[in-house]
């Protein structure tokens, strides 16, 4: 199982507590994880990636295993620790505002 950590506002929108657990068939990549996430929680479509271009929204980042994966290819394999469920794939909201 893939573990996904969502920021507070997206957890509330999806009405979930804590981590989301996802079953991924095939390669574990940003794209396959986000596809599975949006398939299970369609209300999240457009909140992490643009509806049409599927580009990451500007103020969100993807972290895992103490690495910033935001600029990696969406089709690059995620770290083994994410694929095995040992570490979560984290969607992070940028710190901004006042």
């Amino acid at each position: 199982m893939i573990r996904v950590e969502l920021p507070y506002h997206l957890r509330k929108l999806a009405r979930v507590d804590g981590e989301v657990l996802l079953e991924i068939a095939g390669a574990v990549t940003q794209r396959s994880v986000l596809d599975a996430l949006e398939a299970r929680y369609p209300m999240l479509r457009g909140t992490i990636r643009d509806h049409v271009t599927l580009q990451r929204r500007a103020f969100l980042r993807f972290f895992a295993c103490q690495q910033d994966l935001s600029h990696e290819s969406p089709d690059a394999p995620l770290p083994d620790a994410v694929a095995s469920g040992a570490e979560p794939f984290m969607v992070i909201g940028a710190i901004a505002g006042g």
Partner: protein
Amino acid sequence: MSKVRVLAGTKKGAFILEADGKREKWDVSGPHFTGWEIYHMKGSPADPNRIYASQTSGWFGQIIQRSSDGGKTWETPGGGPQKSPQGWPMGESNKFVYDTSAETGKPLTTHQFYDGSQHPWEFKRVWHLEPSLADPDTVYAGIEDAAIFRSTDGAHSWQELSGLRGHGTGPKWQPGAGGMCLHTIILNPNDQIVVAISAAGAFRSDDGGRSWKPINRGLRSQYIPDPNAEVGHCVHHIARNASRPKVLFMQKHWDVMRSDDAGDNWREVSGNLPTDFGFCIDVHAHEPETVYVVPIKSDSEHFPLEGKLRVYRSRAGGNEWEELTNGLPQSNCYVNVLRDAMAVDSLDKCGIYFGTTGGQVYASADAGDSWTAIVHDLPPVLSVEVQTLP
């Protein structure tokens, strides 16, 4: 006894305030959608339990929320687990995609940017939601970058009425300081739709949104190269009394304007206002010549003159204005009242409501003669709408 429900959208969530017809004691629920900007909420005239809300965030984009029980519970239409015939999820409620097809308009890709260059149209947020007069599942959305969309399935899916951007003047539209937003939608029973865009002007469709034309003759704006241009005017809001759909009142960037022919021609009715800059404007529910504005000092100082919060009322359809101050702060008040933050109820004695960037929602149960803050300390208020319930 009738009831009133006030829908207040704020910078940090939505609030719903309810009172009986006396409008003295208010129950407040909220915040709903805590932490999100709620640009606008509006109830369906055909089913007052149906309310739509525009929930938006710089981080997470645009969400449309819908309530079918008067705001007690909410759902994201299309946000549940649905399956298409191919097995893919069908949650489309937040998807606003500009129409660039050759069949339904003209492929439009650019408008004028702040520096005068051409800039691609980019969806940013929904400023205004206008439910249909007759069908609770039909709702219109005013968009930044400026466009109008319609949903006929309760906000599950949205289609652009692309004839507005495609009628020819789109490349001349440009953003105002708040962005290039379509913020006003007025629906009339005869398939007539009036919209307003900052900073493009007012536009009208007489065929349900298929074709459009600019309706800005008579507007004069010193801040554009040709003050009398066909488009480019920063219209802040338009209001009308439903019994007289051809008589429109406009708060422009500067100037309060009036049209008696559904926008074909405008004339200034600022009259004796102490300043004719402002954002909001509304019309009494039963007296179509009674109009309300909140004058703001200037385009660079968005607060009331002299720190005194004053509503101005004209009972003559403009030009002759009286100040209304009873119950409003008359010293050290430096709030703003935004374009969609004034509304009226339709009780016998018309109620007037407005919200401020200081977090107050003021109500008058006597057509403006006296005012009370029904809440004091909300986040900055972006919009106020009112439902009059049986």
